[in-house]
């Protein structure tokens, strides 16, 4: 009873065929692509533009007139000040400085690492689109199970791990393409690229997003692996999407978070994916962990481990639990 000699390439063959099956469904329906990027573009285009934090801090938004009252100065000091030319000159210099663009730029740079909030947020939206695509990747395996395709795939020699990893790869490819479209739209809407921005740095940014998506997709597929109800998946997505974003630096820097939230954000992979993209695309480097700038390596270390662990978990679970 000798085992037949099977095509050794069959593992990759089936893996790619399954990935391509899902990809085809996506690129043959441009409406799906449109729907998946409309949300981050709306967030970025409307909220990102409306939340003009830099604008709040410039021009007439900040005025020192009447500040004397707020300082609780005694009338005698005010009288003395009115006579003191030097003090008046200092006051007016301060007034000029606070209302100048330099002041707002300074504050913005310190807070967001970039002079306008839109640019900061646009990069957050790259993460947003990746996170959402990854979250919905669990849905497709539920449908495959319900419609019987999964059982058919399980009765073929295609490796069990390949069934899951094809879904993961599909999700990764989709989200990276969507992220690329989002960055182009952000460019059209006026994102300020960093001084050292180049094709290479863009590639590094996408490498970070790749790892983030690999880990997240594996995680959500692992959750869905035995599920037979797509409603459950919807509930999971609804439950987790905003908390995941809000506990990361996608929308706001972690520096001003209360310490408990800051701690949570340090375990959120989105924080690291976004940080890589910010450093690479807009040169925004807000310190995380107090490590300061130059934590790119640490970001990649975290993302790499995250991706590796959850991809491993996904493959393990699919070999173990895909069939009951």
């Amino acid at each position, binding site marked *: 009873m000798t*085992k037949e000699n099977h095509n050794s390439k069959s593992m990759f063959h089936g893996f790619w065929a399954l990935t391509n099956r899902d990809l085809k469904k996506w690129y043959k329906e441009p409406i799906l692509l449109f729907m998946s990027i409309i949300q981050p573009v709306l967030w970025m285009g409307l909220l990102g533009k409306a939340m003009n934090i830099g604008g709040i801090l410039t021009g007439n938004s900040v005025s020192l007139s009447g500040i004397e009252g707020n300082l609780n100065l005694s009338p005698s000091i005010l009288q003395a000040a009115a006579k003191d030319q030097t003090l008046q000159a200092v006051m007016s210099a301060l007034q000029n400085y606070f209302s100048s663009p330099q002041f707002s730029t300074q504050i913005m740079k310190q807070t967001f690492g970039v002079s306008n909030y839109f640019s900061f947020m646009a990069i957050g939206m790259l993460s947003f689109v990746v996170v959402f695509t990854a979250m919905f990747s669990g849905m497709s395996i539920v449908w495959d199970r319900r*419609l019987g395709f999964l*059982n*058919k795939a399980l*009765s073929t020699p295609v490796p069990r791990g390949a069934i899951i990893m094809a879904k993961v790869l599909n999700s990764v490819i989709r989200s990276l393409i969507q992220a690329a479209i989002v960055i182009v739209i952000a460019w059209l809407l006026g994102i300020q690229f960093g001084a050292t921005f180049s094709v290479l740095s863009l590639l590094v940014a996408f490498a970070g997003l790749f790892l983030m998506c690999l880990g997240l997709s594996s995680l959500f597929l692992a959750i869905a692996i035995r599920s037979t109800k797509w409603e459950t998946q919807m509930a999971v997505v609804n439950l987790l999407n905003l908390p995941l974003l809000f506990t990361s630096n996608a929308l706001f820097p972690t520096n001003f978070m209360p310490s408990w939230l800051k701690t949570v954000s340090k375990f959120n992979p989105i924080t690291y994916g976004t940080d890589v993209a910010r450093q690479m695309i807009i040169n925004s480097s807000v310190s995380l962990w107090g490590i300061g700038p130059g934590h790119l390596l640490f970001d990649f270390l975290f993302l790499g481990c995250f991706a590796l662990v959850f991809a491993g978990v996904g493959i393990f679970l699919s070999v173990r639990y895909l069939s009951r």
Partner: protein
Amino acid sequence: MDDVISVEGLTKVFNGTLTAVDHVNFSVHQGEIFGFLGPNGAGKTTTIHMLTTVLKPTEGSGRVCEYSIREDPTEVRYCIGVVPQEYTADEDLTGIENILLCADMYGLPRSESKERAKELLALVELSQFADKKVETYSGGMRRRLELACGLINRPRVLFLDEPTLGLDVQTRAATWNYIKKLKEQFHMTIFMTTHYLEEADNLCDRIAIIDRGKIIKLDTPEALKESIGGDILTVSTKEGDDDVTGLIGKIPRVREVKKQDSTYRVKVEKGEETAPLVLNALMKQGVTMTKLSLSKPTLDEVYLEYTGKTMREEEGGDSVFRQRMTLRRARQ
């Protein structure tokens, strides 16, 4: 070894409580069509899932193409073809894309799979629809496409799960012809499940009647029909004639005679040959017959005899959902 499938004590228990398949033993010979006949929820699909390595058996062993379904599932997968109950073809892809996808899952190189796909599409008469999206296919076409997918790896044994579920009479007859063709032209071994009696009668060389996870009876359709007592010959005589129960009872191959008024219900073996003997005997005796009929037992009677006549509670959950989806798409 002549048996393509052999199963011993195969058992599947879901969630530790629900015994779907209960210590089943059977074997399927090379080149035969073997049918699992039973009501919904009898354990037919679960058995197929275990034999096609989709489900792991809780207990017992099974060999398909000489490989153990427990120890060598990958080898089993290479030698079987599966046509599931559901329409699993991807609606957004074309017919040929779907077949090539199946081919890829078996690791067939493109050069080979393209040729095979064309051959198979011709076999199931879908060549002219090869480049049409599956969502435009009718139920019968979808079923044929599934059949083509199941044959892409030139399997030694083909598993068909409810091959004509939800199809209309014409399409069903056509599908039966494809199945017969596979057996006759390619000497393929086929394991199928059905809850349609005429389908089992029409196609299967041997039938296992399964209910509540157990095989109740396993035999050829003819023997099964025989087993409930042979054909029924009904003879009515003119009122007032002598009682001929004893006379009929002495004729060879007559098993049982029941008289009600002037009508005799005679259970006989080989009805066509025995009926003339009964007629001759009665004529010799000078009995005037007014009515005569010969009825053969259908598989319906066999089935009801063994599975009981109570309605089955529908099983809930996923399998029912899938069956409904299948029915809905079949009607498109």
